[in-house]
């Protein structure tokens, strides 16, 4: 298939694999522990597992699967709010598919739907707006979720709703921001990550500049990376070459999609509709300053948090959960005390077991139940 198979070419993969082994071999001689590279984005984690990329890498390099899975890091309290909104009789609650399974403290949206709530899966916020047009007697709430990748389409939908004067549409905004979250990881005392693969589709929106401080201030190299398996291998090779040659900079492997300055129109839409929250609560990581956005006052009529009572309860992660340590690369998923028992994809206790993009679910589903696997 055109535009897909080129990026999964086995021959090219083998060439890159050889190069990677050679560089890691050279680097390993001066090191007492493996190089730790974090792929921030859940989409990258998905690709890495889908194509078995970890097995293609030498022992001297270790992938740390970062917190960039918006479904995984959604705190239980926010899910409880979703359920409460969805259970209002006048509400049609619309959401992306994979958010439906995320457990709240009592139930998930999937369970709320089974109990009679009108929860509908949509592929785009515009589908939710179309529902609002078709059902003027109901209130259609869209569950806005994700990093800067999905923010522009949500913002543009809100702008469209206002333009059309659609009064029965609102957004439950749970969008989160990438850079403050990477910064929180970098600032944590037990962090030992050597370099980053940065999220390609977030970068398509925000551009290269917001990542520069990571190379400049924290002296960690970073490569903006695409989502096909060859993208991942090439980016790893680029990162390793920086270590090898003693550079530390932001490189862009995903140039076919990511313009250096990002997407000005998308950024303008985001800026018009959203403003930074003081802090946002993350499952597994706790509260992180400036890591979420909310709707500006001017859009109060489209803000489900203002239109309805949203309790935003604080529900602590189970004490036994070690998601935070896994996300920072301090331990591997299988080192967690509850990995596989009782925490499984069927019965997720921790954030990282929730979505197939979560590190623990990926390890579990792909059979990395033990170190030897």
């Amino acid at each position: 298939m055109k535009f897909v198979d080129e990026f999964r070419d086995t021959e090219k993969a083998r060439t890159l694999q050889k190069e990677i082994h050679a560089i890691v071999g050279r680097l390993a001689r001066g090191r007492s522990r493996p190089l730790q590279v974090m792929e921030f984005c859940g989409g990258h984690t998905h690709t890495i597992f889908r194509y078995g990329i970890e097995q293609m890498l030498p022992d001297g390099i270790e992938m740390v699967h970062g917190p960039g899975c918006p479904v995984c890091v959604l705190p239980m309290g926010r899910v409880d709010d979703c359920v409460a909104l969805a259970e209002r009789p006048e509400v049609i609650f619309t959401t992306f598919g994979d958010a439906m399974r995320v457990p709240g403290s009592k139930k998930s949206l999937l369970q709320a739907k089974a109990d009679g709530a009108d929860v509908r899966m949509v592929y785009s916020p515009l589908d939710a707006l179309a529902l609002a047009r078709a059902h003027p007697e109901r209130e259609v709430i869209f569950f806005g979720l994700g990093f800067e990748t999905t923010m522009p389409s949500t913002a543009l939908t809100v702008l469209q709703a206002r333009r059309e004067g659609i009064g029965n549409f609102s957004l439950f905004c749970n969008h989160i921001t990438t850079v403050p979250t990477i910064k929180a990881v970098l600032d944590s005392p037990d962090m030992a990550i050597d370099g980053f693969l940065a999220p390609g589709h977030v970068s398509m929106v925000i551009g290269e500049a917001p990542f520069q401080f990571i190379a400049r201030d924290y002296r960690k190299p970073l490569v903006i990376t695409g989502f096909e398996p060859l993208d991942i291998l090439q980016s790893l090779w680029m990162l390793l070459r920086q270590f090898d040659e003693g550079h530390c900079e932001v490189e862009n492997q995903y140039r076919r999609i990511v313009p250096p300055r990002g997407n000005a129109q998308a950024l303008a839409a985001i800026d018009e509709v959203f403003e930074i929250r003081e802090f946002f609560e993350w499952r597994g990581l706790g509260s992180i300053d400036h890591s979420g956005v909310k709707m500006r006052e001017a859009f109060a009529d489209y803000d489900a948090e203002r239109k309805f009572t949203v309790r935003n309860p604080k529900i602590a992660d189970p004490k036994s959960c070690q998601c935070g340590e896994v996300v920072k690369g301090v331990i591997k998923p299988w080192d967690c005390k509850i990995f596989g028992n009782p925490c499984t994809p069927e019965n997720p206790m921790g954030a990282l077991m929730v979505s197939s993009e979560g590190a623990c679910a990926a390890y579990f589903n792909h059979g990395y139940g033990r170190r030897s696997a």
Partner: protein
Amino acid sequence: MSRENTITLAHGAGGKAMRDLIDQVFVEGFGSPELAALEDQARFDLAALAANGDRLAMTTDSYVVDPLFFPGGDIGKLAVTGTVNDLAVGGARPLYLSCGMIIEEGLPVATLERVVASMKATADDAGVRIVTGDTKVVHKGAADKLFINTAGVGVIPAGIDIQAGNARPGDVVIVNGFIGDHGAAIVDARGELALETTIETDCQPLHGLVATMLDTCPGLRCLRDATRGGLASVLNEFAAASGVGIRIEHNAIPVRDEVRGICEILGLDPLHLANEGKLVAVVPAADADTVLAAMQAHPAGRHSTAIGQVETGQPGRVVLATGFGGDRVLDMLVGEQLPRIC
């Protein structure tokens, strides 16, 4: 019956309206003598059944697909092929089906007639008869348009022993063509994505293909149709029941470009998508080439191909060689396959 346009609760009330519906839509539509007898049960001659084999096979399945009509098929075709295939993959020759219909009031009679005609045509194709039935009409909202249950009876010839637990190291795993067409067709037919392509369901009866396979390889070990849960579920069932490992080559699995495309867009995996005319077979290595040749010569198996083999491996584990250089475990789905956010 006064030709009403829609089904009402009266059609399920047991009185004259129901009788008219049964006579004019079902008895006439299905055209089988057993049904026309209008007894409460179909009756079979045991000696005639026994002439076909030494074991009776029985199965049941319910069909609730939405939309009722989709490219390449409809709920009626599905209700016949699905049950025929469940018999066929046990090695049985399918003979008789029952048909229970649960109808939401307000369904156009013409829709029902279209479904019945499709069931009749599919049954004729598959060489089975619909011999007994039941009709219920429920209040608006208590069912979604039309649900169908079919049960099927068939006979297994002597000497055939197909079981999920029969796979042995060295055996070859075969599929009879493109994977994921049905699941993708249903996603496409719901129209929520507004794609330009049309993907047709692969819905087809498999008993003829199975008979051909058994002719060339009576020692065929495992056979299942890969419906809900897709290819991945069947492979895991074989591996678990047989206590063996199975290794599959990703690049050997036939998947149409349109299906790959829809999966790429939605973040779905074709190996988990439903099929309605695809079977997965495990055959002894010595017979693999002849079975494959026979399958490819059959209309229901033209694109048959070997996709992997049974290994000692880790018992119960299916490993997928990704074709990119690495391996991964291919597991069953936990719940429903949900599109990914980004």
